[in-house]
């Protein structure tokens, strides 16, 4: 019945982010075509929203030698695995020298590095956008608590401590319609381990593996530094935010209770985003796309004037951090790359698309459309960026976040470790397990995994 292998004859198929594809898919396609790939048919194929699930689908596809999709959007967290397996095309061989040097010269090299073969430095993907979370908040609510533009301006670039932030938030909640202060993702899943908790932990001067330098290894030869006071302190703070009542494990003297809804322990990004959009939450920790969506593309968006962003608060300044390279405001470094399917039957067109995405025009356009932060430092200060609507309004905050980005601890054992981390951290914050117990259990669990490689 289905005679041909593909339904989208002639089109370059691009495995894509489902939210973006649904909201602004057509615009993105036009943007690519206008950026130099005119004449190329492009079809965006939405994948799983959950990054882990999307990785598994792509793994199967590429392992099976499928010819489609021709292009993939891949999380900077797992491109490396595909490079190791030889599943994606080596762009160093596919692209011209000049194009390669563009990547070398114009892109954030720290971000680009995640798409290179660590062995020989070959390039396997074109960075699309780095992703840094911010603390987004309802200015309208804040105004009701008596805060004004000057405060907002200060908040946009000056990170607060968690205690300060909590106080402010508490005030806002009390003064406004908000039901609670903080919305974030804290389910048992990758996002908690790689990002939300990683940020809190780092801001308290903690780290999973003894500091920033050990994030990417060497597995087995690095300390596990989980059962440490700063780690437990961070957990207790989060527990306090969620807890209804004080108990042995809450820090009710330093932080308000019930600042966050206890529901966050089942939440992922979208739950948090809708919570602030609905007006339930005063603040939300989320990625830039949430800004774009909430102020522009959602069904019932908030006006830009009412939506603010600030860097994630911190527990201890960098100087006081127990683990090297941590402390201060921390944003988990996410981001996505564009990679090429080596089996593609439309390699030429696909490469054309790749080239189009390397243009400034595309980068700026995507920032405007969907809030993809340009992967090129030069563009950060570009007028177009500053003037982009609505994202331009949040550039300052994003820059601060970018400067304080913490890469993910992605190693071959990370999958096992992350599920363990997510589980323990989730339980501790939900109050199902004492934070120190969770830390201790996690310590031994991670050590086991480290040992066994």
């Amino acid at each position, binding site marked *: 019945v289905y005679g041909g292998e593909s339904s989208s004859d002639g089109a370059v198929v691009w495995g894509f982010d489902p939210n973006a594809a649904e909201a602004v898919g057509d615009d993105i396609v036009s943007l690519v075509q206008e950026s130099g790939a005119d004449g190329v048919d492009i079809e965006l194929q939405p994948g799983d929203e959950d990054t882990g699930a999307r990785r598994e689908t792509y793994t*199967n596809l590429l392992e*099976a030698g499928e010819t489609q999709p021709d292009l993939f959007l891949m999380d900077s967290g797992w491109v490396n695995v595909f490079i190791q397996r030889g599943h994606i095309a080596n762009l160093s061989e596919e692209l011209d020298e000049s194009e390669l040097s563009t990547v070398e010269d114009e892109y954030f090299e720290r971000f680009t590095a995640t798409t290179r073969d660590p062995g020989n430095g070959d390039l396997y993907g074109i960075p699309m956008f780095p992703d840094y979370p911010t603390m987004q908040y309802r200015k309208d609510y804040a105004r009701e608590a008596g805060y004004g533009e000057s405060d907002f301006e200060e908040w946009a670039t000056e990170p607060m401590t968690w205690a300060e932030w909590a106080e402010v938030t508490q005030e806002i909640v009390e003064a406004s319609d908000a039901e609670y202060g903080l919305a974030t993702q804290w389910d048992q899943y990758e996002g908690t381990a790689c990002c939300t908790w990683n940020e809190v932990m780092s801001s308290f001067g903690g780290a999973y593996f003894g500091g920033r330098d050990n994030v990417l290894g060497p597995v087995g030869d690095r300390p596990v530094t989980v059962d440490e006071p700063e780690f437990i302190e961070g957990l207790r703070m989060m527990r306090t935010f969620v807890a209804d009542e004080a108990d042995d494990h809450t820090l009710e003297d330093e932080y308000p209770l019930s600042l966050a809804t206890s529901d966050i322990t089942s939440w992922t990004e979208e739950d948090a985003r809708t919570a602030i959009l609905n007006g339930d939450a005063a603040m939300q920790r989320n990625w830039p796309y949430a800004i774009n969506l909430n102020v522009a593309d959602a069904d019932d968006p908030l006006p830009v004037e009412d939506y603010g962003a600030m860097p994630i608060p911190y527990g201890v300044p960098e100087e006081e951090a127990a683990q090297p390279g941590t402390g201060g405001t921390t944003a988990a470094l996410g981001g996505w790359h564009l990679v090429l399917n080596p089996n593609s039957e439309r390699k030429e067109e696909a490469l054309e698309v790749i080239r189009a995405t390397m243009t400034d025009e595309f980068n700026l356009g995507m920032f405007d459309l969907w809030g993809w932060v340009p992967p090129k430092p030069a563009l950060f200060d570009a007028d177009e960026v500053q003037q982009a609507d609505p994202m331009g309004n949040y550039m300052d905050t994003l820059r601060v976040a970018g400067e304080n980005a913490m890469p993910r601890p992605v190693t071959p054992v990370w999958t096992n470790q992350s599920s363990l981390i997510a589980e323990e951290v989730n339980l501790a914050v939900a109050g199902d397990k004492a934070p120190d117990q969770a830390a201790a259990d996690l310590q031994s669990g991670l050590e086991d995994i480290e040992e066994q490689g």
Partner: protein
Amino acid sequence: MSNVPEPEPAHEPAQPSTDDEDRGPLERWTRGVIEDSEKRSRLYRALFYVVTIFFLVTTLFPFYWLLVLALTPNGLIQQGNWAVSLPAVGEVPFPAPQGFNPAAFLEVFQQVPFHLYVFNSFVLATMTTLIVLVLASLAGYVFGRLEFPGRGLMMLAVLAISYFPPAAFLIPLFDAFLGNAVTLPFLGIELFTPPRLVNTPGSMIMPMSALFLPLAIFILTTFYSQIPDGLEDAARVEGTTRLGALVRVIMPLSAPGVATAAVLTFISVYNEYFFSSIMALQNEPDQWSPLVGGILSYQTQYTTDFNLMAAASIVGVLPMLILVVFAQEKIVSGLTDGALKE
């Protein structure tokens, strides 16, 4: 008339004699029920309806819940207030539709080409069911009606296949269906190179047949073994072969069993997604991905559009509902009417 003393120590023993005094209304009622067949049958009927309604409510409630979700605009769902205030009782947590947004169903169709997925599911399920029925009937006949050395062992072997998590079959099958050479395990001797079967019905039907075969075999074995030998004998004397008797007499007579095996297999395949989601590499309809693949990809792509998810689920269930309504009438109750002689 029976003034003749009872010749045997016990005819039918009498009902335990009842002394009538000092009985509460409940006891009287109970006794009334015990003694009065009219009352008893009324009680049975009442009990029967209570039980039936209980089953109906419990099985249907989740569907009602889906419907409520689908009809409620997503914004309202997220506020999550399902309390319904009842007079006298107060607030009762019970989901009632808040707002009315049938557009969700249309929206779902815009996203997912359900008709294609449903078509795939039907093709896969029908073919698998046919294969399973044929093979399981043979096996059921063999195991249920023949005596031969190795019978118990063969049955155990067939059964043992179902002990394994489906994942245990996956890698080698996936490899083979990709068109990689099949090699003899442990020895590494290359046997043959199969054609590339991924994204075709074959890659799903074969493993699914094997997966659902044991259940069907066991069902049919049980049913076939209960058909009296006399009927098979009669058929054979009339001129059928042993297999002819199977097809013409044993299978029709085991129709409840055959129908059940068929329905179970069909539904299982229709709902299967482990193999199909992997063999249909991208859950695309043109890769023979079944309905579940479509719904699943929908679910995973839009994790907070609860109303859409619910609507998609309802849409996914509808074909099955229709099938069950009509097929069960044809298959199952047709037989019941034959068997029920009252």
